[in-house]
């Protein structure tokens, strides 16, 4: 009986551990979605709009102020961490690992984000609502752990 209860307790521990990992994964996923929303907002702004036309690997600089994707990453992390800097949920930093424009006009693109530890990655299709079209972000892709 004693051994049985020890085994049950170990099973409970494993279950609780899995649950913690699931919560951790949800938290990372939420942060990636939040980051994608902010990056989409930034890319909508005149200041960063020119970046939409280039791939991340092109290492583009736009305008007199040399706006770049790395600068956008920093801006996004700063923005995400502004209101809740002390909360563990906001502590993971996000990296833009790819931006792939899906057309020459820069109105649609595939944004790939990852947590800085590389444990979670997610892709988003972003449609910019230029020309009176409704904008959207698709986070349908499955995250990989």
């Amino acid at each position, binding site marked *: 009986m004693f051994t049985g*209860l020890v085994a049950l307790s170990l099973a409970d521990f494993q279950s609780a551990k899995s649950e913690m990992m699931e919560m951790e994964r949800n938290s990372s996923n939420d942060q990636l979605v*939040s980051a994608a929303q902010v990056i989409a907002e930034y890319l909508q702004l005149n200041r960063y709009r020119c970046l939409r036309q280039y791939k991340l690997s092109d290492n583009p600089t736009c305008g007199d102020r040399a706006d770049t994707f790395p600068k956008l990453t920093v801006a996004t992390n700063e*923005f995400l961490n502004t*209101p809740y800097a002390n909360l563990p949920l906001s502590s993971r930093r996000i990296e833009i690992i790819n931006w792939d424009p899906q057309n020459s006009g820069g109105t649609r693109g595939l944004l790939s984000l990852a947590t800085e530890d590389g444990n979670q990655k997610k892709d988003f299709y972003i449609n910019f609502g*230029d020309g009176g079209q*409704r904008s959207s972000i698709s986070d349908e892709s499955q995250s990989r752990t």
Partner: protein
Amino acid sequence: MQLTEVLVAVAIFSIPLTSTVQLASQKHLNDKNQFSSQYLAKAIERDRLAIQTAWVQLTPTTCPKLRGPEDMQTAAQAVPVSSGLRREVRILDDQGKELFGQTVYTGKAVWVRWSSSDGTLLRQRLYTPMGLGLCW
């Protein structure tokens, strides 16, 4: 049988008995906590889908339209929250960030935070009108 032998025997048998009772109560507590967190996780997911459904029914406007986040907050507040769950919808008014010697702005956004009834933060997610397709 001498008294000492009885006492030793009692001591030997009482150790696993006490441990068994402690483990059983611990297991019961774990089961209860597990059920509670699973219930809350599902309630949060249902709540998230409910408020997003309310948001996508809002009328799209020109981006950046400053009214968007206020409308989102009002629409979210009209959606009832499950028992045992707290939802906070806060408008984040970006005051600009000083980066590389320049001030960078983005639009207003909405932070949604879900907490348990004792105030423990469970999830938080940021939403913007642009991300929800509410502007062009």
